[in-house]
């Protein structure tokens, strides 16, 4: 994906908004927070578009801004009670056109379990997991994004996978859905 701030903001949004928004939802756990965080991140990135790196350094920069915006939402701007109440836990109907209603229900249930399992992790583990296994950043890029050493990122990813392995609800659903271990 070469679309970036060097092109128009509209083209950049068309190419990157959906992935950035899903990332923010997984990080924040709240659609409203994610929407504000992504908007804030794109506006900041657009404001500093002249200083954005080109090539492979661009995505870590953008996701670093998103992570910072999510941290800001998580820690300051939104009361915890509101976040807990509005957390994404409804996935009904999202897979209705996949393999029939039953499969869609199973997919939604699995998605809810994954989201719940993610949010059992602390921020320091959840952020590397999402950036590594959903966004697809390398450990070095994640290190740039969260301002930690690559070794720290590696150990955190290892710890996060170990904890997710121990999540009983996630393990049962994954087996039932046919996701092999």
């Amino acid at each position: 994906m070469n679309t970036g701030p060097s092109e128009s903001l509209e083209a950049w949004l068309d190419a990157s908004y959906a992935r950035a928004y899903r990332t923010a939802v997984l990080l924040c756990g709240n659609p409203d927070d994610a929407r504000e965080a992504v908007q804030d991140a794109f506006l900041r990135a657009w404001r500093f578009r002249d200083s954005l790196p080109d090539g492979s350094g661009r995505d870590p920069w953008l996701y670093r801004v998103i992570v910072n915006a999510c941290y800001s939402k998580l820690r300051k701007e939104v009361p915890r009670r509101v976040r807990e109440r509005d957390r994404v836990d409804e996935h009904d109907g999202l897979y209705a056109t996949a393999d029939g209603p039953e499969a869609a229900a199973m997919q939604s249930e699995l998605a809810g379990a994954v989201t719940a399992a993610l949010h059992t992790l602390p921020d320091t583990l959840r952020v590397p997991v999402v950036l590594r296994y959903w966004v697809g950043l390398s450990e070095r890029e994640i290190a740039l994004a969260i301002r930690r050493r690559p070794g720290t990122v590696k150990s955190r990813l290892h710890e996060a996978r170990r904890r997710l392995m121990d999540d009983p609800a996630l393990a049962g659903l994954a087996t039932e859905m046919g996701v092999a271990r």
Partner: protein
Amino acid sequence: MIAEIDEQELERLLAVAAGAVEVPDDGPAAVLRAAHHRSSGGADVVHARRDRRFVQRALAAAAAILVLVGVAVAAVGHGSGTSSKAANDRFVQKAAPDASAAAAGAGTHISEFGKPSFRNEEKSVSGSSAGGATVVNGDAVPASPPTTVAPTTPSGSGTADSTKIVATGSSVLEVPKGSVPKTAAGVVSIARGVGGYVASQSSTGGASPAADVTVRVPYQAFDETVLTVAKFVGNVHGKVLSSTTNSQNVTAQYTDLQAKRDAAVGERNALDIVLTHATNVADILSVNDRIESVQSEIDQLTGQIRLLNDQASYSSLDVSISEKAPVAPTPHAAPKPRAGFSLAWHQAGAGFAHSAEWILARSGKGFVAIVAFIALLFFLRYLYPVVRRGLL
């Protein structure tokens, strides 16, 4: 080996979770609107809230600063008010003993002050009693214009012209080094300017030059002269250490002397008549002796009357001028010997300082460079990311 979830499995699970997230259709459009709003001078909701919060914090900080400044100003004002009150108390204490003198008829109020002019002046003259009183207090600017109280008409007898008041005063001036002759000349000039003259003048040279000047000025210009001298001393960066004025109503004494003289003159005239009718030598000698005695009394009374007239017409002001004494160094109070925990703490601090000095002395500039390098690393590692994050 610690069991952990497979990476590919985790990717699939996260893809499931992310795929379940419904992306708002108007998300990009909202960002575009916000960007357009911002570029056109507006601000999106988040930034408006942030700006509002910034303004609130700025206002709170400004209010806190104002409160602190107000408290500080109030504290300083209270402190200076206390000082003024203390100064007033000192003035009252110094003036109090003189009040008894005034009650006794001397009518003298003395105050010492460090500023070269007068703040308050009060003069009262009571008709038949010898009760003139002057209170002088020092301040930079006179609070009220100098007043020369016109002699009031004594109740019962006499006229305003017959009222006699003798005013005297003395001032002790301290002037900068080398200013004694100039100040003495200024005092003389002031006196002559109001129609007065120099009664006496003396000066002392050497290491501590000083001058004493006694000037006589018309009674009506006496108060003005005292104030002018004080202002003049202020202009030469000196100060009035003390100033004393004394006003005494001598009308009764003057009238008494006149009456005695008139009586003596009458007696002498009668004796002159008796002398013309004396027939023998013994009577003539006796009456002549008596006339001489009365004439001598008349001469004495006339001299006293002339003296009172002169004193009442021209007031006397004694001015002592000296240079400022060098300020003696204030001896510092000897520190109390330390003991117990204080001693241990002091020794620990001294030991630490000595150790640091030892390390610095042996490591030279390299130690300073190392410390600076560590501080730079600390900044780059911990502080700069925070600043950078705030900027982003």
